[in-house]
């Protein structure tokens, strides 16, 4: 009961603090959709960097990736750092030109950007529909993370899971609607800091606990090696590594909530700091989270701390962090638990706002319909989360797979290429279509994700077919 009470007090403090920050940010809100969705391009360095990082790094990190590192070993670090390095590369190459063009052309939503580049509103409509369909599982996975965290804090129970999901929906709705991107970015900054501090505390506690059990960090890694976790093998065969990493490599180009963040910095200096400090945040947080998972596994192998999550059972992966919280002190558990909620909310409210801008601008529904759409989408996310579909990692990665086919059209457009808009739109649909076919033919989402038609990973197929269509579209336009 003490544990639950302290957890609720810390959670309440976080919600009150976040709501106060959101309300305080209202004074910066300017009228119009540009003000509500992209702050009229006036975000400073700190908010730009923190909202980019907090939007990108979700509860997948502290729930899913900890579990992945625990179950599959250090390959989980390679998987996540491929994402970070490719994102830094894409930001270095493209972010400045996109930022400049967004100011020149007045882009508010990513679909609007594509419509402007290819001279067709149909492109924006197709992109918006793909965003909506693809991001529902990704965002629902975040709500599922909140539900699991609340249930873990309370020692299990379906009713606590439901309460967690509903609480998450309520908070993200309020923080999105109070001042649009200003309240989202300001609360993202708070949540990002909370995630860093909580993660650091969790790692330091785990190291101290292991040491008090006679297991130093170096010895812990020796235990992992003796347990057969040497090298990237085991789960992380090369084709699994490719299947997981390729969709994430293009996250910065294909996910509208992060593309839209390129429109927001107030000047190039803010954009520069956004890229730099996002990289610092990402590297630190990734290594930290993977270390937590690996050390927890070492504790399991050494038979200390009482961790009992079976690493061989994929269904238990998401239970590693809750099991750590269960043995940690109530205060630490509450702070980390709240960081899981923060990581989820900072991702989902950004997605909601971006989808709202898509409904308003790309589908031409107007601002009121955009806001109504935000509420409807939030309800759908809650419904999917309450249905407890699959486990969190596959849900998240599947979204990236469906969005992957937006990469060729987006990159070609950023490079100044043009093309027949019908074929460009068709190229964007390749991801959802191939994922749907693979799911039907293999019989499951999980099998579809790692499927290799003719020995080639499905992600490569999506990239190849969509790239081919974009190239053909350029030829038709040019002839």
């Amino acid at each position, binding site marked *: 009961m003490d544990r639950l009470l302290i957890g609720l007090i810390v959670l309440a403090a976080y919600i009150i603090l976040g709501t106060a920050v959101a309300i305080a940010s209202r004074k910066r809100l300017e009228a119009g959709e540009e003000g509500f969705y992209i702050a009229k391009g006036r975000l400073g360095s700190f908010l730009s960097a923190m909202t980019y990082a907090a939007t990108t790094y979700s509860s997948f990190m502290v729930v899913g990736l900890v579990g992945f590192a625990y179950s599959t070993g250090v390959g989980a670090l390679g998987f996540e750092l491929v994402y970070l390095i490719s994102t830094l*590369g894409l930001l270095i190459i493209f972010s400045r030109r996109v930022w400049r063009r967004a100011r020149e052309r007045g882009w508010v939503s990513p679909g609007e950007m594509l419509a402007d580049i290819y001279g067709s509103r149909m492109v924006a409509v197709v992109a918006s529909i793909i965003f909506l369909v693809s991001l529902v599982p990704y965002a629902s996975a975040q709500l599922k993370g909140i539900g699991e965290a609340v249930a873990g804090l309370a020692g299990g129970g379906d009713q606590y899971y439901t309460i967690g999901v509903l609480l998450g929906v309520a908070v993200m709705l309020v923080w999105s609607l109070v001042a649009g991107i200003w309240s989202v970015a300001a609360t993202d900054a708070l949540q990002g800091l909370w995630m860093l501090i909580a993660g650091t505390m969790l790692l330091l506690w785990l190291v101290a606990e292991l040491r008090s059990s006679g297991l130093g960090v170096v010895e812990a890694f020796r235990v992992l090696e003796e347990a057969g976790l040497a090298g990237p093998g085991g789960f992380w065969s090369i084709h699994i590594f490719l299947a997981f990493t390729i969709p994430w490599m293009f996250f910065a180009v294909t996910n509208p909530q992060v593309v839209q963040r390129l429109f927001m910095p107030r000047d190039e200096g803010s954009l520069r700091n956004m890229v730099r400090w996002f990289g610092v945040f990402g590297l630190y947080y990734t290594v930290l989270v993977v270390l937590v998972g*690996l050390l927890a596994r070492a504790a399991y192998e050494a038979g200390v701390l009482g961790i009992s999550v079976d690493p061989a059972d994929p269904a238990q992966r998401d239970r590693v962090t809750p099991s750590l919280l269960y043995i940690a002190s109530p205060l630490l558990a509450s702070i980390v638990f709240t960081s899981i909620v923060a990581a989820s909310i900072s991702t989902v409210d950004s997605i909601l706002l971006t989808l709202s801008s898509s409904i308003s601008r790309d589908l031409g529904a107007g601002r009121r319909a955009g806001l109504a759409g935000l509420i409807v989408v939030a309800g759908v996310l809650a419904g999917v989360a309450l249905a407890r579909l699959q486990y969190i990692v596959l849900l998240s990665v599947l979204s990236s797979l469906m969005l992957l086919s937006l990469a060729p059209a987006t990159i070609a457009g950023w490079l100044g290429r043009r093309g027949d808009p019908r074929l460009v739109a068709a190229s964007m649909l390749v991801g959802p279509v191939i994922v749907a076919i693979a799911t039907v033919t293999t019989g499951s989402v999980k099998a579809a994700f790692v499927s290799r038609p003719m020995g080639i990973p499905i992600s490569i197929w999506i990239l190849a077919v969509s790239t081919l269509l974009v190239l053909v579209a350029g030829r038709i336009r040019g002839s």
Partner: protein
Amino acid sequence: MRQAMVYAILLLLMYIPPYTMLKASSPLALLLYWTALGIAGLAYAWVETRGWGKSG
């Protein structure tokens, strides 16, 4: 193009050595190896963005 080349090389280094010469290495060695590549990617981004916002 130089920037694309640098990140392409970093990405190749993320994939190829761990699945060839580092295939049997310890988890700690791989953790340090991949982290070093992450630091390299971040350091390069830091250098490449030095001029942003200082002209025009």
